[in-house]
């Protein structure tokens, strides 16, 4: 018997008992749907993290002052930043001195972060300029009162490209607006687009009041040099801060990419775990199919006897019952994929959770339901194939 004949036979059988077929499939439907939905959510958060990784700036090291002794003043200085700049392998260095202030333009005001930094900031933190230009080295050196707005801040103040070159006020002090940054979107704790960037000297003079810097962003030229550069910076700063070998460092160097890579591998594990739990549902669905098929073999003993009497061999009966189980499981798998996609789309929309489903996931889910059909269909099918025709014909 050809495969087509067998599938046709299986479908006509399923049609004659639609309700039972639907209920039998339900287990596989739910199993596959949960695999698809949970793996989708897992993969979604992984790809979300990967995307965020690239918006942070490539090969970024952030040096921050450790507030040892509860002291209010930062231990990092502009001179530290300049000294770090001479370490080989560094592509850009951006010391930051940050505060909060009220920004005003044409009667609109908003309170936001004021970041005093250097011209390298755009490269180090991976910002693109939308309108105008970023701070220049000259502006930073001469401590000109110029400002670049983040996209969100510009929107809050109702400013667009026509405002470039006009004056805004920061903490009541007039600044010339020279540029507006491209929006980056999506960050975990703080909107990177809600900020005002000004020359660091200006920020220290008007808002911070000393020459301390809170953090120094360092962009390393090559990924492979990250560890070396980090060690060199540590050594340099320890010397500059006069720390003995046994002293605790008064600064931290933080590799965000490293952190996110770790986070990404954690969500990867989580995805596997969720997929694994969902697979258990799928296996339970398979056992359900086996159960129903065993009942079916018993109920159809006489049919099996008749088929054998008119010439069916054991393998014909085996194939018939196996294909029936497979049809149930694969049909359940397809419905499960549809349901899983629908549920994840709904959850993603309502719960604002990103979800991503690769074609590979769908193929694996389908193959898995196929495997479930084979594994749990073989035994009932063998039972059917082994029936003795005389006994089967006499069965009431």
């Amino acid at each position, binding site marked *: 018997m050809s495969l087509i004949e067998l599938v046709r036979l299986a479908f006509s059988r399923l049609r004659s008992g639609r309700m039972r077929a639907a209920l039998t499939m339900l287990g596989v439907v739910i199993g596959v749907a949960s695999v698809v939905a949970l793996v989708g959510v897992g993969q979604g958060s992984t790809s979300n993290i990967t995307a965020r990784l690239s918006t942070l700036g490539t090969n970024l090291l952030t040096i921050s002052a450790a507030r040892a002794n509860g002291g209010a003043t930062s231990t990092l200085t502009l001179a530290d930043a300049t000294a770090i700049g001479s370490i080989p392998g560094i592509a850009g260095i951006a010391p930051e001195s940050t505060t909060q202030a009220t920004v005003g333009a044409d009667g609109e005001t908003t309170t936001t972060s004021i970041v005093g930094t250097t011209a390298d900031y755009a490269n180090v933190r991976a910002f693109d300029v939308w309108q105008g230009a970023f701070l220049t080295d000259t502006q930073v050196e001469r401590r000109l009162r110029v400002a670049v707005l983040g996209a969100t801040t510009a929107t809050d103040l109702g400013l667009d490209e026509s405002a470039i070159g006009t004056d805004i006020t920061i903490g009541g002090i007039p600044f010339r607006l020279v540029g507006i940054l491209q929006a980056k979107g999506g960050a975990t704790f703080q909107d990177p687009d809600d900020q005002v960037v000004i020359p660091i000297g200006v920020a220290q003079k008007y808002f911070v009041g000393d020459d301390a810097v809170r953090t120094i962003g360092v962009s390393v030229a090559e990924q492979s040099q990250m560890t070396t550069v980090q060690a060199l910076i540590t050594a340099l700063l320890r010397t500059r801060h006069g720390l003995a070998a046994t002293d605790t460092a008064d600064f931290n160097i933080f590799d965000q990419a490293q952190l996110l890579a770790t986070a990404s591998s954690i969500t990867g594990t989580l995805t596997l775990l969720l997929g694994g739990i969902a697979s258990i549902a799928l296996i339970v669905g398979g056992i359900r199919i086996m159960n129903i098929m065993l009942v079916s073999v018993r109920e159809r003993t006489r049919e099996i006897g008749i088929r054998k009497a*008119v010439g069916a061999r054991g393998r014909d009966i085996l194939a018939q019952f196996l294909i029936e189980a497979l049809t149930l499981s694969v049909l359940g798998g397809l419905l499960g994929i549809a349901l899983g996609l629908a549920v994840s789309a709904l959850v993603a929309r309502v719960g604002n959770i990103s979800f991503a489903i690769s074609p590979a996931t769908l193929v694996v889910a389908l193959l898995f339901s196929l495997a479930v059909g084979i594994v749990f269909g073989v035994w009932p099918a063998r039972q059917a194939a082994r029936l003795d025709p005389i006994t089967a014909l006499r069965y009431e």
Partner: protein
Amino acid sequence: MTLTGGTAPAGTDTPIISLRGIARTYDMGRITVPALRAVDLDVQSGEFLAIVGPSGSGKSTMMNIIGCLDRPSAGTYHLAGTPVEALDDDGLARVRSRTIGFVFQSYNLLPRTSALDNVATPLLYQGVSRKERVRRATAALERLGLGDRLDHEPNELSGGQQQRVAVARAIVTDPALVLADEPTGNLDTASGHDVLEVFRELHRAGRTIVLITHDAEVAEAASRQVHIRDGQLLA
């Protein structure tokens, strides 16, 4: 109804069924029950033979062995020249598929399956294409006067009609032997006569028929009778 066609009977020199010293014993744990003891029987091609015996006489066992549903414990059995006592399960299935058409007392049609599909089922296991199956099953049903019942399922047919569907299924493969086990047992007298008339027609068309029954009146339909009692044929 006209029943024409079918294979012309082969030469009468070689019997189509040849049983020699056939015995069948059932193992019931400690004791063995002999159901058949040393049966010799020849059936010529084109014969209509009735095997008559009361229940417990061993006629069902005869039917199972002649029908290749069971193997004898001893003896040799040639069906259309093939020694079948040594065949494995697949071999027996092949012989059933190609050489034998069954008609049972309780019709044994597939439930929830149209008359057409029921009749076409033996052809399915011969690997006949769907189109050809439909053509031959339709022809067989038309021969038995059921041309207007092709799409009816067994529960929509009378007992007599169901048995005629079963006969159509038995002859659709054009088998060398039609084997009928109490074919009138579940039918009223009129339908029973009707079905026996079908067998006589098939016989006239040259088909070999073996009918197994306990009913002497039914056996009258056959051209030859053998009687079985206590697992032995009576002389």
